[in-house]
């Protein structure tokens, strides 16, 4: 199969909200799926494939069937992807592969989550990370990303200001996105450094804000997508690499699995990160953006902050980094936050990113990252027409 025979025909995203009392995941999935179908100009009856994510604590089993029934779909192909923050990107190439295998023609990939702070769900894990790490007071993601950052600072002599700059740039771009949780709230490097240290060396403002929300992407054949009078967005390459669950078992502390995922996607696409005008890079924490810029080969190890200082990463720059504000600027709607990076890349390449459109954007690199730089997926996208 050739990736370029497959395209993203429609995208949608619900604005992230801090809370979502009284709603359900299925309700959000319904809303965002309808928005994506409308965007694609595709009727529900034309959707014959469905890919969903895990619904922790809500629908432990039979998730695709539950979602299909709610949406009134009877897909000839259904699946679940469980790659943390790489779930959305992982869905896109699987959708194309399912179409190539003749199992469907038009696949809806959808993720949504509710958030009720009163009812925090503690997972009933009995796996190695629960047994060998949680009893040490190592719960949650902050501590693990803090250790990635600590090692980065030690290896490269990078500074707290370098990390803070990532959060500042995200907020800058979020000022053009009315849907962003931090719209109207720009920050400075000083603001970041004055925010409380959560786990050294990470400050609170270097950590994504958990939100409720949803996102959906419809993948179909390039031929079908070309019926849309707008420019379409073809898939050109997809790379994936899963190396560990717990950071203690990382393959390396010098690079992340994104390096392999991006290299694989680039090789398939015939172009690399340096040829992309849109960098839609997964950014759950400041450190992840620095590591990803280096994994993508855009700069030498330890020099990502310099790269940021050298480049205007707004939509007016030569290369724009997370023009929607990223998850650091928008808020993170759980797994849908990762899919938001695809939604934004598609809008930029189509030329309909209202209020923040980059001129002449033709190629995009989209990354997804799950657990602690554990599950990596990279997509190369290109505008057609």
């Amino acid at each position, binding site marked *: 199969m050739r990736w370029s025979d497959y395209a993203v025909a429609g995208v949608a995203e619900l604005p992230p909200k801090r809370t979502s009392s009284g709603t359900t995941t299925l309700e959000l999935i319904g809303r965002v799926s309808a928005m994506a179908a409308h965007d694609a100009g595709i009727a529900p009856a034309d959707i014959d494939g469905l890919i969903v994510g895990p619904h922790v604590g809500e629908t432990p089993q039979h998730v695709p069937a539950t979602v299909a029934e709610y949406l009134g779909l009877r897909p000839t192909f259904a699946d679940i992807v469980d790659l943390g923050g790489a779930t959305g990107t992982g869905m896109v190439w699987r959708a194309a592969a399912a179409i190539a295998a003749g199992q469907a023609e038009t696949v809806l990939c959808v993720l949504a989550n509710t958030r009720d702070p009163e009812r925090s769900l*503690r997972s009933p894990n*009995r796996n*190695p990370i*629960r*047994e*060998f*790490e*949680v*009893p*040490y*007071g*190592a*719960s*949650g*993601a*902050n*501590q693990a990303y*803090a*250790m*990635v950052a*600590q*090692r980065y600072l*030690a*290896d490269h002599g990078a500074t707290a200001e370098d990390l803070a700059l990532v959060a500042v740039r995200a907020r800058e771009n979020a000022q053009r996105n009315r849907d962003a949780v931090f719209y109207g709230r720009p920050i400075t490097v000083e603001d970041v450094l004055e925010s*409380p*240290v*959560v*786990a*050294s*060396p*990470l400050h*609170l403002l270097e950590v994504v804000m958990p939100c409720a929300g949803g996102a959906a992407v419809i993948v179909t054949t390039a031929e079908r997508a070309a019926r849309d009078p707008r420019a379409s967005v073809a898939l050109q390459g997809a790379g994936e690499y899963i190396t560990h669950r*717990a*950071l*203690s*078992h990382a393959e390396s*502390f010098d690079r992340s699995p994104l390096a392999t995922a991006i290299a694989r996607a680039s090789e398939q696409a015939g172009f690399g990160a340096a040829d992309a005008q849109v960098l839609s890079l997964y950014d759950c924490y400041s450190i992840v953006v620095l590591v990803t810029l280096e994994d993508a080969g855009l700069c030498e190890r330890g020099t990502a902050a310099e790269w940021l200082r050298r480049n205007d990463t707004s939509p007016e720059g030569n290369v724009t980094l997370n023009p929607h504000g990223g998850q650091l600027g928008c808020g993170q709607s759980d797994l849908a936050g990762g899919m938001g990076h695809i939604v934004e890349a598609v809008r930029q390449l189509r030329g309909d990113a209202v209020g923040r459109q980059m001129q002449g954007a033709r190629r995009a690199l989209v990354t997804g990252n799950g657990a602690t730089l554990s599950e990596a997926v990279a997509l190369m996208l290109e505008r057609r027409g």
Partner: protein
Amino acid sequence: MPDASGSSVPRPGLVTTPLTQAYWQAASEGRLLLQRCLDCGQAQHYPRSLCAKCWSRQVESFDGSGRGRIVTFTDITMPGHPAWLEEAPYTIAIIELEEGPRLLARVDPPTAVTVGDLVRLANPDRDGIHRFEVIREG
């Protein structure tokens, strides 16, 4: 209900499986149990039903040296679980053991380590978890 640490939120306690019981028993005695593959020689942490390198099922437990080096660490001021709030700040680290495997553990005293420090297993405490201390040279 307050637990031993005085916190009002109960801590997620130790969980074990029949395969890992000996590991946690050793931990409570201040020993760090590792596994060694009898076919390829690979050492591994945590205990598994097979060698994660060659998939041999001939793996045996042995007492590790308890010595290693800090790969990275963090001083936690805002724990991810409220049960540890009153203990903060505390330090967790990823330690590469002399035998090769890495593990996550606590390092005492808190907020006093850097990347690359040599550490050794300290005396066990009531938690039954592994706590390391920095080996100061000279």
